[in-house]
């Protein structure tokens, strides 16, 4: 039934959650105040399936903001013993948009090509992802269509289109099929499939195009614009607040710090998100900073997304989600920069 499309009446969503809860910790988009984030859900939780891009990207669940690497305890002989935390329980993440699905792919490609560490890929392997199609751009700042993530469905196990009273679901993996079979869904009706085709076509037209070149051309375009004044002009507005790094689904950098009790006898080593726009990131002993200016730092961030990541991991490091633009206090726009270097 791979690739086949089924229909799930909206009220059966709870049954899906119930089925997933047997094997997974289930997280879904839930509205709190005027923002939406993924939280633990139950079958009766009201899901905000019409949500706009969350502030924090899904990587928060696979490589969390603050994660214990190990705990330590000083023994009677004064030497330390170490213990790794138990491995994370498998997660089911519902309602992941195309940009964030792409983000998870980038996360995987980074971890698989950069090092031998399997922690994050293993978590991704064991996760169940329900993708969700967007009908309109989430943010004014999104440019997912340009970056090719609007239509991306991988690595979802099931991919959903919200038609209002009914969700259409496409099976993408074996696991997706197993889960869906438990709900014994009917195939989508011809009318529904027609509606899906029509809306998909309309969607393609309603999503504006911002860039006039394919993402594969970015690396060369950036290279050519290395010494453009645009870097400095943008960097002048940069607050070095680091938000662009933290909200980005493809940022991966972290800091490591220790916590301990007053006498130092027990504690933990943690990793926490950081990024190339965060003061102190490129400083070494003696105070020397290898990337001291905001101009260098900003260029570095954009180069990593548009040039270094595709060159090294085979995937452009920007999904077009628009978070970094939306959350930048002075609206520094990677989209505008891409557009300018591509001109």
């Amino acid at each position: 039934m791979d690739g086949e499309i089924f229909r799930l009446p909206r009220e059966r969503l709870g049954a899906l959650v119930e089925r997933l809860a047997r094997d997974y910790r289930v997280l879904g988009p839930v509205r709190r105040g005027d923002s939406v984030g993924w939280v633990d859900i139950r079958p009766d939780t009201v899901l905000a399936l019409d949500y706009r891009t969350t502030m924090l990207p899904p990587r928060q669940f696979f490589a969390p903001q603050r994660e214990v690497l190990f705990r330590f305890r000083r023994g009677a002989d004064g030497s330390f013993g170490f213990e790794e935390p138990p491995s994370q329980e498998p997660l089911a993440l519902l309602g992941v948009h195309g940009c964030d699905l792409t983000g998870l792919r980038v996360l995987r490609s980074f971890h698989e090509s950069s090092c031998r560490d399997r922690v994050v890929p293993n978590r991704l392997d064991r996760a169940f992802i329900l993708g969700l199609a967007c009908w309109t751009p989430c943010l004014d700042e999104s440019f997912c269509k340009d970056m090719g993530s609007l239509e991306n469905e991988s690595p979802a196990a099931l991919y959903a289109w919200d038609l209002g009273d009914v969700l259409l679901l496409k099976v993408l993996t074996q696991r997706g099929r197993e889960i869906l079979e438990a709900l014994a869904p009917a195939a989508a009706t011809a009318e529904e499939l027609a509606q899906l085709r029509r809306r998909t076509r309309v969607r393609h037209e309603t999503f504006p195009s911002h860039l006039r070149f394919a993402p594969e051309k970015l690396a060369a375009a950036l290279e050519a614009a290395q010494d453009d004044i645009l870097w400095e002009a943008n960097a002048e507005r940069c607050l070095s607040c680091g938000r662009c790094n933290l909200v980005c689904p493809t940022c991966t950098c972290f800091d490591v710090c220790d916590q301990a009790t007053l006498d130092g006898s027990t504690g933990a080593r943690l990793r926490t998100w950081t990024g190339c726009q965060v003061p102190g990131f490129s400083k070494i002993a003696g105070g020397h900073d290898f990337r001291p200016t905001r101009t260098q730092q900003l260029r570095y961030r954009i180069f990593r997304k548009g040039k270094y990541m595709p060159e090294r991991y085979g995937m452009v490091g920007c999904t077009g989600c628009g978070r970094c633009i939306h959350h930048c206090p002075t609206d520094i726009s990677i989209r505008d920069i891409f557009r300018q270097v591509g001109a």
Partner: protein
Amino acid sequence: MTRPRVAFFSFGSCEGCQLQVLSVEDSLLELFGAIEVVNFREAMDDRRDDYEIACVEGSVIRPEDVTEIRQIRTRARILVALGACACLGGVNAIRNRRALADVAGEVYGGRQDGVFEALAASPISSVVQVDYEIRGCPIDRAEFLDAVRSLLAGTVPYTPAYAVCVQCTLRGTPCLLERGVPCIGAVARAGCEAICPAYGAPCEACRGFHDAPNFTALGEAFARAGMPREQAAAKLQLFNDYREVRAAWERALPSPSDT
């Protein structure tokens, strides 16, 4: 291991930082076991001058404070400034903009004599060398304990070099500035876990600035959020108005209308 002898002193302040020290409830007895407190007026009678570490709260605001802090400096091997008043001048420094006689006249109806003589409210480091600063109004209890832990172990406390926005975003707080609230976390030094935005109030940079603040851009951010740039300056005045602290930002932003 011999316990280091520690003294606590307070100058012009609300003594809230000392209260924070007493409020490390779960670790208080352990703390008092690990250090020997020889002077802590708010909590004990004994007063000895043979301390190695002096933790000082408050701003210098009277001539006799100058004498006293100098004496503390000669006695202490390590001098730690606790809190915004001691590290930055804090809220006390706001009044420095006006002549003291004027200020006192307003509050005491013209009377200002022997009982208090006041100076411009100043951070400790304006008078003596400060070895370490634990920032915040008030200091964060966990950060204080962590600093003590580092000093006990024989090394320097850790302070983040980056903005409050980092910790704010990490904890997932929806940004207040985006919603038009005058938050200056983007120039403020982190370490407080961005507690104010998390509890619904804008950051007012009670911990001073991070390593690379951009005040001009802060004005720009305010303007984009629909607030006058002057408002950024008005916020910076709250904790960062002491002469030398203010020098960092005053030229980057239009000054708030004098009131």
